């Protein structure tokens, strides 16, 4: 039995080296057969993939994997077992794929450890399992499963255009051989053999690729600037410190296909004339770090990094640098400071990193998703890329679809698709019967899509027209059970905590903003007559604060911090008003605005709540109905939890109605 996939082809090493050196791509035809073995199109024993991305692990994939191993051992089965990446449908994890020799690969969702044995019992005997079959990967060489739809017919995948995600979840992430067999590193070998750095930059410029980190700066222009700034040493930096709340695409694609990132970094370094490249990765991404490290070792072993790469005379070193665990590390100038070993604090721009960056040398800083596009553009040409997408925006965009939809996960959609399509088709509509409320499209960009703007296409200009921006890729769907004030409080607290402390508007502004929101959503000490006025004044000040923070903050963190508050003010003003004036939380979320009271009829006088109340706000004696003194009550809900007779009632307003 073999538990881990290994490539044991006698001539594989030689072929791979030849392949890597073969810029024309002619060799692929010659070694077609062994390549199809390496890419696991042809297999001679069953192949089992377990989705082991962070999403899979969170859903229990580790235990599933152990169960599969156990099953194989018990049944003395010889099979390949691959720890795969994330195929995108995170809400269906743990996903197990089984591919039998000659048969199409079958994908089954929600396979917890207990479900492994029945699943394999059936599939290994060529029977369709009685589980949540997601679909099958159709392939001309494989015999398909009857009555099982292809994966691309699944509603989650139907409208996707999986270019960046092409290999994610399908391949063994830490197998350089498999990546090469599926066409990987060809773009890089082609670039260094046939193209000058200038040509690569021009290619990017012609393709119209725009930065995906949120700023949407043209990548080609950035590279060109770095290339044309004269300096003995230049740097390429990949910003893999993705930390915008609600987005996790970069983490997922790095975990699922680390070699694509390495290839892209190599091309970017070559195009900008950098001999040193840093991948600045968020330290919390432990799995991505582990897999990138492994992939980098393989790349170094095959001579893809280091000195005199692929006999071309090009030298590029890639250094993996783990972040300092702060949101602000994702800001490019703070990121560069952090690499230099300094405190991660943003610096004023200009000068831009492209001309004066790391250690004052020209540095191109690119986001992971942006870079993932690069090998595709080199491989297929800028015209191909420019042809993707619509509404004046090119290419595809990754989103982390999350929130109250039926399906959640990583999606890749062509530019121009409407928000409604994503929500209703890919997301499968709302998960519960609560009505749709809003979509948060990127937390740092602060875009808020509501019912009336739901048909807006995902495109730079179209979004700008409605005062939104593409953002970094969070796509958070909210329903009516979300309190917008609570959400604003959550994000403001986040930005307050993550402020680096350098500039006044961000450091002090976020803190004061939070104070005002907490005052509006909170109960206050003793509700004196002046408090409604204070709350009202606070709301008036919020707008001014938000505008000044956007106007004067040093970096994007401070400028984006007020978005959550402004969204609530702009789209959900009535929700603010009901908190401030009526002291009501329409969604019933804000705990401080709940009122607890005891139903005299139902109360048996058991004294349970009386004993547990942490502030002695309950009065009463044995077998007599109890009473809550509202002035003392802190609305902690303990009495509600301990009452066995449903006698404690709660309302979300001050007037005690049941």
């Amino acid at each position, binding site marked *: 039995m073999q538990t881990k996939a290994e490539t044991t082809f006698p001539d594989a090493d030689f072929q791979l080296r030849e392949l890597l050196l073969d810029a024309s791509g002619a060799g692929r035809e010659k070694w077609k057969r062994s390549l199809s073995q390496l890419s696991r199109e042809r297999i001679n024993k069953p192949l089992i993939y377990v989705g082991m991305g962070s999403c899979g692990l969170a859903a229990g994939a580790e235990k599933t994997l152990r169960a599969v191993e156990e099953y194989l051992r018990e049944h003395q089965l010889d099979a390949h077992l691959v720890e795969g990446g994330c195929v995108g449908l995170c809400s269906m994890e743990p996903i197990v794929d089984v591919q039998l020799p000659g048969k199409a690969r079958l994908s089954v969702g929600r396979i917890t450890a207990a479900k492994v044995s029945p699943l394999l019992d059936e599939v290994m005997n060529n029977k369709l399992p009685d589980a949540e079959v997601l679909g099958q990967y159709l392939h001309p060489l494989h015999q398909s499963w009857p009555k099982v739809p292809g994966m691309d017919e699944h509603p989650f995948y139907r409208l996707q255009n999986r270019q960046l995600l092409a290999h994610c979840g399908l391949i063994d992430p830490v197998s350089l051989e498999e990546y090469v067999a599926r066409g990987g590193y060809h773009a890089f070998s082609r670039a260094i053999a046939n193209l000058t750095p200038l040509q690569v930059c021009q290619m990017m410029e012609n393709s119209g690729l725009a930065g995906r980190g949120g700023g949407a700066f043209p990548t080609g222009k950035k590279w060109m600037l770095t290339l044309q700034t004269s300096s003995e040493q230049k740097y390429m930096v990949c910003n893999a410190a993705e930390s915008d709340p609600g987005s996790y695409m970069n983490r997922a694609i790095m975990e699922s296909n680390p070699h694509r990132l390495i290839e892209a970094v190599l091309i970017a370094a070559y195009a900008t004339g950098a001999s040193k490249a840093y991948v600045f990765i968020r330290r919390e991404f432990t799995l991505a770090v582990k897999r990138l490290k492994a992939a980098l070792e393989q790349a170094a072993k095959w001579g893809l990094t280091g000195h005199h790469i692929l006999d071309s005379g090009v030298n590029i070193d890639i250094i993996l640098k783990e972040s300092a665990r*702060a949101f602000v590390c994702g800001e490019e100038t703070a990121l560069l400071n952090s690499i230099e070993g300094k*405190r991660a*604090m943003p*610096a*004023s721009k*200009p000068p831009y990193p492209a001309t004066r960056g790391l250690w004052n040398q020209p540095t191109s800083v690119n986001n992971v998703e942006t870079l993932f596009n690069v090998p595709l553009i080199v491989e297929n040409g800028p015209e191909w890329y420019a042809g993707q997408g619509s509404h004046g925006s090119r290419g595809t965009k990754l989103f982390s679809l999350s929130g109250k939809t039926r399906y959640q996960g990583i999606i890749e959609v062509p530019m121009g698709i409407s928000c409604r399509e994503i929500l209703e088709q890919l997301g499968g509509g709302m998960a519960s019967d609560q009505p749709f409320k809003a979509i948060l499209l990127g937390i740092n960009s602060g875009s808020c899509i509501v019912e009336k703007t739901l048909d807006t296409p995902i495109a730079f200009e179209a979004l700008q027209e409605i005062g939104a921006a593409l953002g970094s890729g969070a796509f958070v769907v909210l329903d009516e059970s979300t309190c917008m004030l609570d959400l604003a409080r959550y994000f403001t607290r986040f930005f*307050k*905590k*993550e*402020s*680096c*402390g*350098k*500039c*006044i*508007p961000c*450091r*002090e*502004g*976020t*803190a*004061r903003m939070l*104070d005002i929101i907490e005052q509006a959503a909170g109960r206050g000490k003793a509700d004196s007559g002046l408090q409604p006025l204070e709350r009202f004044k606070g709301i008036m*000040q919020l707008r*001014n*604060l938000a*505008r*000044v923070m*956007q*106007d*004067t*903050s*040093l970096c994007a963190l401070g*400028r984006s911090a007020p978005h959550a508050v402004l969204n609530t003010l702009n789209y959900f003003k009535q929700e603010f008003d009901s908190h401030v004036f009526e002291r009501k939380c329409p969604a019933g979320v804000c705990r401080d605005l709940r009122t607890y009271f005891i139903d005299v009829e139902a109360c048996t006088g058991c004294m349970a709540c009386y004993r547990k109340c942490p502030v002695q706000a309950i009065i009463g004696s044995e077998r007599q109905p109890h009473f809550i003194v509202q002035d003392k009550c802190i609305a902690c809900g303990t009495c509600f939890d301990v009452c066995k007779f449903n006698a404690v009632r709660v309302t979300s307003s001050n007037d005690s109605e049941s």
Partner: protein
Amino acid sequence: MNTDFNIIVNGRPVGAMADETLLTVLRRNGFRIPTLCHMASFSPTGACRLCVVEVEGLRDLVTSCAHPVEEGMQVHTNTPRVIRARKTLVELLLSNHPDECLYCQRNGNCELQWLAEEMNVKERKYFGPKRPGRPDHSAASVFRDPAKCVLCSRCVRVCEEVQLVAAIDFINRAGDTVVNSAFNKGLNVKECIDCGQCISVCPTAALLDMSHLEKVQAALDQPNQQTQFFISPSALVSLALSSGLKADSNLFPVLSEALKKCGARQVLHLGEACLENIRAEAKHLVESLANKENTPLFSSCCPAWVNYLEAFRPEWLPMLMPGKSPQQLAGAALKASFRGKGDEESYTVALMPCVAKKQEAGRETNIHQGVSEVDAVLSVRELLRMLRSHGIMLERPNGRGPDLEQTTPIPPMALKMGYSSGKAESVATECIRLMQPSMLKNFRFSAPRNPGGRNESRIQLGRQSLGFAWVSGIAAADAYIGGLMASENHGIHYVEVMACPGGCVGGGGHPLGPDANMPAGRKRVCQEMEKLGAEEPAS
């Protein structure tokens, strides 16, 4: 002045040069732009955002301190948007600033207070909790109150860029950010060399000198404490400048008079002690040359420099001149010669332009069997405060009045000790006096002609060539001496090192204020007084 091109500010063309920042151009042309973090000749940080202006075609407001000028740019410095932004920023700073102006040492001399006034802040609009951190009394010279810190990072930059030691930096994040030494240990750490440059640049009262005023006042109140004050020449100059007195030979008698009104028994100046220190260093240098010992030797009168060597360059300590600084020489001499009646004790107070002197006075080597050579050191700031609290104005009597006591004038050499290059010159002069007195008559100490040249001067004494160098600011000193150590034939025998930029005239104990030209002004006055001293030779 020749300019490269014009920009349009508030509708009016203004000349600018290509490599300038917007702030430089605006200020040169008389536009008032408030700043809190900006320091001329330092790299901009853009932390305070108060210098924002509106530039047509740019979506966000730009910080003029960091924005390069571009030909034809249209700038507006006082639009409602700009004014509202600045006002809100100040209000935000005030939201968690302690309302202690009445008790604050910088009351009336505080940049935050001025800004609040300038921005027409009339009420506390935002309410925040007090900033974290407790007052830090741990260090010998510098007192830190984090509650009053506005995190402008001026002290951090001075400490790193001018003094190299980087003893302080930002700690924690967001609202918890404080400026402190590593691991939040307070300022009583070896890395802090007590120079007090951080105090000089602080816009508020977050950094101050450790006050010796209270114990001096207590000594003045004790009948058996015979208070003996002595003032350094550069402190005297600073005092003259800040109280509007003409710097002439009457200055010291005026001060002496004033201090006696406060209760001082004896008031002296450090002229003799300075001369003694210079002569001792010259003698030691000549002896070292005769014994062919290792050179260069470094001056040792600056306590911050000594602290730096001890903490960061112990390998250079053998090259430090032995002997006491003028302050300790004077203090020791006064204590030794004091003959009190009954239970009378001597209490020596040094009046200094320096805060490191407070630390020097408390060094173990300067205390003998529990008796300090110098009991207290007052900075010029504290001296002024003491005089004010006694209701005494420094006034110039008409001419040399009969009640002014005759005092020995301050020798020019002592005045020279106040600014960078002066001591090197004096030591050179004394060396010639010792080695070849005949040369003295025509000797002129030559400074480098070209402005970028190294601060070195060479003297030919027969076959012997002597090299004297001077350098101020620890970063410059460390770089210069490091260069000397690396080269074989540098020909430098004596290096005068002053930790503060420009020497003692730029010290950390002078009156505070936004005028960056103050050290240069004090140097000029020192030189004027030297001329006076030369005309009126000591009788």
